[in-house]
């Protein structure tokens, strides 16, 4: 991984010129959009935050926002809020609830419907996320396999992290979850929308994880790594 460079603090509406990406290909992350007036050469900022760049061609904005904005391909955790025929409404923390078809589960047919109830938690992938349309979820990949997606059991617990922490924890290099795993076994599913589903043998362990996340929310990535190193 090449080093990440911070360029500037930007506000929504500002235009990023002089892109340093090679071959005119730019990968843009959260908080940035293509500038329609001058495509290929500039980007429009949609969130206030630090502009970061990783060579060769990745740009994104690091911000402290608390609202999740759906993005195509995101793996999210949602709660079923309404059932209407073949489609259920799922709250994923965005401005609008997402729709999830009951047929988008592995092996689901007209006769074999998945057992979905109001209040159930699903781990799903965003199929479409357009700013003018409601987001749509699926629980299968392109090969019609569920993989890890699907309904999460009701024996776990759902916590709200913040978006930054969810991103930090999803980073495979982050040692926090591994350090916790040395203490006691647990299962965890983290959605990009800042929610985490936790299941452990004892309720005490779940509460320990919740408390850890609560504290880690206010810590920088560096200090989390430092704290994990100390406990080894």
């Amino acid at each position, binding site marked *: 991984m090449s080093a990440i460079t911070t360029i500037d603090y930007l506000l929504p509406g500002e235009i990023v010129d002089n892109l340093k990406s090679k071959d005119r290909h730019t990968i843009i992350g959260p908080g940035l959009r293509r500038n329609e007036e001058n495509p290929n050469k500039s980007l429009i900022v949609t969130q206030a935050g630090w502009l970061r760049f990783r060579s060769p061609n990745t740009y994104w904005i690091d911000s402290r926002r*608390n*609202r*999740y904005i759906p993005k195509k391909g995101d793996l999210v955790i949602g*709660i079923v*809020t309404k059932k209407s025929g073949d489609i259920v409404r799922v*709250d994923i*923390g965005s401005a609008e609830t997402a729709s999830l078809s009951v047929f988008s589960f592995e092996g689901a047919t007209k006769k074999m419907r998945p057992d979905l*109830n109001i*209040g*159930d*938690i699903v781990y799903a992938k965003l199929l479409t996320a357009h700013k003018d349309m409601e987001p749509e979820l699926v629980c299968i990949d392109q090969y019609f396999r569920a993989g890890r997606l699907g309904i*999460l*059991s*009701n*024996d*776990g*617990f*759902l916590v*709200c*992290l*913040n*978006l930054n922490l969810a991103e930090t924890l999803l980073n495979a290099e982050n040692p926090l979850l591994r*350090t*916790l795993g040395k*203490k006691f076994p647990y299962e965890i599913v983290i959605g990009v*929308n*800042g*929610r985490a*589903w936790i299941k452990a043998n004892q*309720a*005490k362990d*779940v*509460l*320990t994880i*919740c*408390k*850890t996340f609560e*504290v*880690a*929310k*206010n*810590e920088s990535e560096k*200090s*989390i790594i*430092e*704290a*994990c190193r*100390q*406990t080894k």
Partner: protein
Amino acid sequence: MSNLRKTFISNAERKFLNKNLEEWNRLDGRSFQEFRDVQIEFGKDWGCCQVSLGKTKVLAQASCELQVPKSSRPSEGILNINLELNSIGDPSFESNKQSDLASQLNRLLEKCIKDSKAVDLESLCVKMNERVWAVRVDVNLLNNEGNILDCASIAALSALAHFRRPDVTCDGIEYKIHSFKERDPIATVIHHYPVCISYAIFAGGDYIVADPSWLEEGVADAFLSVGLNGHKELCGLHLVGKVQLTPERVLETTHRAAQRAGSVIEVIKGAVEKDTSEKLLLKDTGFHKFDLQPIDLPLSELSLCLDHWSTAKGKKKKKPTKTETDQEEEESIKISKKEEIAELIPKEWDVVESDDDETSDDVVAIEPPKAEPVIIGDTESEEEDVIILNTPKNNSPKKKKKKQSI
């Protein structure tokens, strides 16, 4: 505030919470009878305060205007309490729309403060049949983490206790309202301090939990809200939901609520008195004087979480942070010394201060009867309360020890 928007409670959360309650645990580590901390901050203006109960935050502002009195009560002022639940506090609330919850909470607040005649309305009369003061308390929800009612009642009461209205004179035809510079503002007369104390009831009355959090509120079967003042007088009782509670259970809970009410009223009185005296000394007061809540918890806490079995390690790591706070304390002492010097200058204000003492005299008069009922409860510590509650349920105190170690 820093949380993501939550709108819907999943079955998993419900199940987990109920399972924990069966083990006499609460998710935030409190005991069943433990309340969250109350913090009261006053603004620059009279009658402006922000109250936080844990993470639930409420802003209250008292204001007044001259009005023609109601024909049925020509010699009484008018008191209005208006609680607004807007989408700043919780995205599920719609602003500009009176929801059922809002009107219910509003009514409870009115019942607690207005109908219990806590505020002396007759003293708000300027001229009978012609002009009275109409005092209005606007309470706005800033953040909802459960138990809005308690927080709002504390805020409304502190705002009223802190509020000063301008003096008014009448030359026969016209009423002249004097500015605070011309004449000293007048404090509102408050006979007694009623506050609401809320409980959430689970599993058909088996578990009664004080000061419910957002999640607990969503899962609870029923709620019990008690309005109480410092004399342990009931100013309102509201039991809502599907539950069958025995009268003994309600009485028992009310007794416990009375203790809490006493301590809350003490906090309100203390905060109001402190800010009033500071304002009279022309000190710089207001929200900007209050530090933001420390966002950065010491790193040691994270390490503590990580090795919650070997607490000795955590203690070692805590030490450096303690020395830091010591230094901070030293600094703050220095600052306060400087302020003392500043205090000495405006001596003229001492007269006004004695004026204020009159109101505090009332306060002293109220306090002695409070001491008597305390004997019933023996100690103020809430943890001991829990033991009383738990023992009849055949629940060994071992579990509580475990809880503390977490």
